[in-house]
């Protein structure tokens, strides 16, 4: 570096625009770029996360005021509260029932749409269209389909000689019915992720397979499915995360009934917070769900980081 030339340049305290000089020049500008986002991030994510955790140690009410310090009182109550355990079990049951069909059907639909030429657009339209509907619309339509006396489903059941099925009012069936609705509504998302992945498979693999006289089934088994392994991992974890957070459609279709058999943990949080006004206790319950989701999410982050580096 030749400092002798420096005085000749205007406004240059370093002879070249080195990275160091840039860093010195821009600390404020750089912060200006990130500041607007960081502000909403701090106010509406970081602060509620911390405040929610702190609230679990108080018996706060919704109106405000921290309430009195309870120590671990809320947490002890969570462990002893049978409603926490049954709604956790309901959430787990919903997850176990919904994830396999949502993943497998999404894969099947993508395989069907990927191979069709002339009808491809129709399949893509039909499979994904329900996903753009709001939960309320989906719930209204399906409650009408499930309607015990007048609904379309029981219309077909009775025409086939069966007796009317209590889709949403039977404790045995309600969860299954809610899962069926959920599959119809959201499978389109997984379908799209699989379709995108299918279109990324190099065609050379299929050409090589055809040279080896592989049947279509063998190509599916030995080329397509292995190539989709990473996508499947991603879809399974994303689906787990979204199934664990289920609330909208169950609340709208059954309000957690009959006899609380479909009530998910998030609905119990909502009820404790917004109908019983026990915010401290509701926060403690929601942090149980948070912990479960965090475990799955950390697993997901590892999975996605495998493909892309965080610098």
């Amino acid at each position, binding site marked *: 570096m030749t400092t002798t030339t420096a005085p000749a340049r205007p406004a240059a305290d370093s002879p070249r625009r080195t*990275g160091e000089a840039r860093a010195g020049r821009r600390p404020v500008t750089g912060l200006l770029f*990130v500041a607007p986002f960081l502000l909403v991030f701090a106010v509406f994510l970081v602060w509620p996360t911390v405040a929610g955790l702190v609230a679990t140690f108080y018996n706060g009410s919704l109106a*405000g005021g921290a309430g009195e310090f309870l120590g671990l009182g809320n947490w002890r109550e969570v462990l002893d509260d049978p409603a926490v355990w049954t709604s956790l079990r309901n959430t787990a049951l919903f997850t176990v029932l919904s994830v396999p069909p949502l993943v497998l059907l999404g894969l099947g639909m993508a395989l069907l749409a990927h191979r069709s030429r002339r009808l491809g657009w129709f399949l893509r339209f039909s499979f994904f269209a329900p996903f753009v509907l709001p939960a309320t619309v989906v719930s209204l339509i399906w409650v009408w389909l499930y309607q015990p006396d007048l609904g379309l489903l029981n219309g077909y059941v009775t025409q086939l000689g069966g007796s009317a099925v209590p889709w949403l009012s039977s404790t045995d069936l309600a969860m299954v019915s809610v899962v069926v609705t959920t599959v119809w509504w959201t499978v389109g*998302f997984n379908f799209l992720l699989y379709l995108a992945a299918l279109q990324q498979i190099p065609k050379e693999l299929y050409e090589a397979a055809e040279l080896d006289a592989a049947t279509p089934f063998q190509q599916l088994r030995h080329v397509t499915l292995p190539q989709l392994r990473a996508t499947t991992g991603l879809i399974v974890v994303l689906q787990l995360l979204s199934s664990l957070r289920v609330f909208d459609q169950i609340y709208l279709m059954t309000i957690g009934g009959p006899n609380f058999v479909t009530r998910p943990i998030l609905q119990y949080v909502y009820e404790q917070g917004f109908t019983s006004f026990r915010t401290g206790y509701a926060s403690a319950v929601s942090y149980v769900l948070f912990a479960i989701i965090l475990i799955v999410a950390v697993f997901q982050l590892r999975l996605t980081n495998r493909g892309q580096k965080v610098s």
Partner: protein
Amino acid sequence: MSTVAPPRPPSARNPRPGREAPDRPRRRLSAGGAVLSTLGLLLALVWLVPVLWALATSLKPEAETTSVPPQWFGSEVTTGAYRAVVENSQLLRWFVNSTLTTLAVTAGVLLLCSLAAFGFSRMDFRGRRWLYALVVAGILVPPQVLIIPLFRQLGSLGLIDTYWAVILPQLVAPAIVFILKNFFDAIPREYEEAAEVDGASPFRVYWNIVVPMSLPVLTAVGIFTFITTWNNFLLPFIVTTDPDLMTLPVGLAAAQGSFQLLYAQVMALALLAGLPLLIVYVLFQRQVIRGVGSAGIKG
């Protein structure tokens, strides 16, 4: 877009499922193929049945919706249910509310997140690393588990029952900062270095170079944000009690009680509420599919 060839996005995360795949070997017609085509067609038709049944119900005279066994077609096709619903509900008002809040959230997310992503990708400032680590950690926090503290926070800010309560919390999209930063990182620096030599400010570099080059990914992220915001239920449900401020999904949930047993009207209501996004989807099917496919990383 300028004449400068845009950099290719990280291809693995920018799939284009909307395209007809040109890369599969042409299949010969076979019995198996015919079976699969039929299966696909049948499944696609079955998938439309719920919406078609809602449509059929909504176009019948109210008295005929309760026929046993259910009939697909009534004695006449009438739009009476639709007229009744528009007159007797605040559907239009909710539509306006949804449109305003969703547009505000989508524009805000695109602006804030792309600015932040640019800052994290291109600028040097103290604390950049750990601030970015904090943002990435924020991806792990599901907004649904924060409803209680978020509600109290909005309450203490005096925002309950305002548009702001619906809009502001939804501006927090750390996953989108993450997606955009990764995309910006992949854009070669040569273009901006040339501009910087010419004395362009960092904001000019952001606005005139990086944003135009990122239009595909910004469109994708924007569409995904639009759909999820329009359909968001839990947040607007807890922060609005005034029917004049409700979004379409929440207003619909509040109103359904007053239309009980009027099945044609309930279905008309549901279809009118679902229509805006269905139209968007039909018009921009390719972009929507691509957008959702590439933004799928957002949990």
